[in-house]
């Protein structure tokens, strides 16, 4: 696995983590406030672990990769870039699509010849089991709802798109990197 593939993976998790956190405080149920906030926290933790591996190969740091690139340099899927609040059906559609695809990706990475990648993927998979169960519960509840089905079909093609950026990614980038850009040389 090369550094560019690690960046795709890390960027997906970082940006989706931010997008999921946009539900904190405003989800339709208190339980979902907690769920999406917790999933966001996990995804950002996974992003950091993958960025650390990529950073070693590229001779940089995880923070620089996460926050010091230009928005057009991110390699994440267009699916995770979209700002979907306050559309709950579309959010669950994305959650279902992403977790399904991510499960396959993690299963492949667990078989990697590189023990560090295989080990990290195995660790992440243990946490992701809960994301998949959560996505499954919501899929079962919404699967016959027309708005949900439409959202799944509309969003599905975006999963594989990595070379065109959604316009709202630039806004997220500005928000995400604001504090770091405000103090030159800040680290934490």
């Amino acid at each position, binding site marked *: 696995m090369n550094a560019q593939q690690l960046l795709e993976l890390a960027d997906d998790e970082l940006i989706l983590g931010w997008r999921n956190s946009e539900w904190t405080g405003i989800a339709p149920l208190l*339980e979902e406030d*907690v*769920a999406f*906030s*917790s*999933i966001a*926290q*996990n*995804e*950002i*933790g*996974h992003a*950091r*672990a993958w960025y650390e591996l990529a950073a070693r190969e590229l001779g940089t740091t995880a923070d620089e990769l996460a926050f010091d690139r230009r928005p057009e340099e991110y390699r994440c899927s267009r699916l995770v870039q979209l700002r979907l609040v306050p559309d709950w059906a579309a959010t669950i559609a994305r959650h279902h699509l992403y977790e399904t695809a991510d499960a396959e990706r993690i299963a492949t990475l667990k078989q990697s010849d590189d*023990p*560090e990648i295989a*080990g*990290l993927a*195995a*660790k*992440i*998979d*243990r*946490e992701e*089991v*809960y994301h998949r*169960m*959560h996505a*499954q*519960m919501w899929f079962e509840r919404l699967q016959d709802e027309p708005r949900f089905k439409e959202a799944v079909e509309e969003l599905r093609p975006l999963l594989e798109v990595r070379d065109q950026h959604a316009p709202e990614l630039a806004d997220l980038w500005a928000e995400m990197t604001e504090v770091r850009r405000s103090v030159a040389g800040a680290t934490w």
Partner: protein
Amino acid sequence: MVTEQQVWDVLAEIPDPEIPVISLVDLGVIGSVDVSRDQVCVEFTPTFLGCPALEVMRDAMAARIEELGADARIDVISDDSWSTDRITPEGREKLRAGGFAPPAPREVGGPKLVQLQSNAFRCPYCGSRDTTLENLFGPTPCRSVRYCRSCRQPFEQFKTI
């Protein structure tokens, strides 16, 4: 010269920053302790990768070892060697006494939704199994929320991972 036992003893006094009823040794996150000359190397196996307590744990371990007069090196091991099965029997009992239901043993293939929705989980307050899954997620990454129909009390269930 610091001994391995002294290091284990101080590590056993460091509480989990988010669940202070149990120590880092109870939690099973210390993979190994290696003492050579004046350097102590600790293998630290994190719980959840996004857990903000990890840095606090790592820094607390280094600080306590340095108080013993040795240099500390904490190696973070990011593989799946930690699971909730590593929590010690004493740790499980401390969790229960603190109002946290200890994790169910990990089965092959990991936890399943149908199992979490079953009545396999005991209320830490009254011991009843008449409990329901309220939320897979809780106030920290390592916890779910359940509800006991017998004593009508919500409680936190340590996730099995």
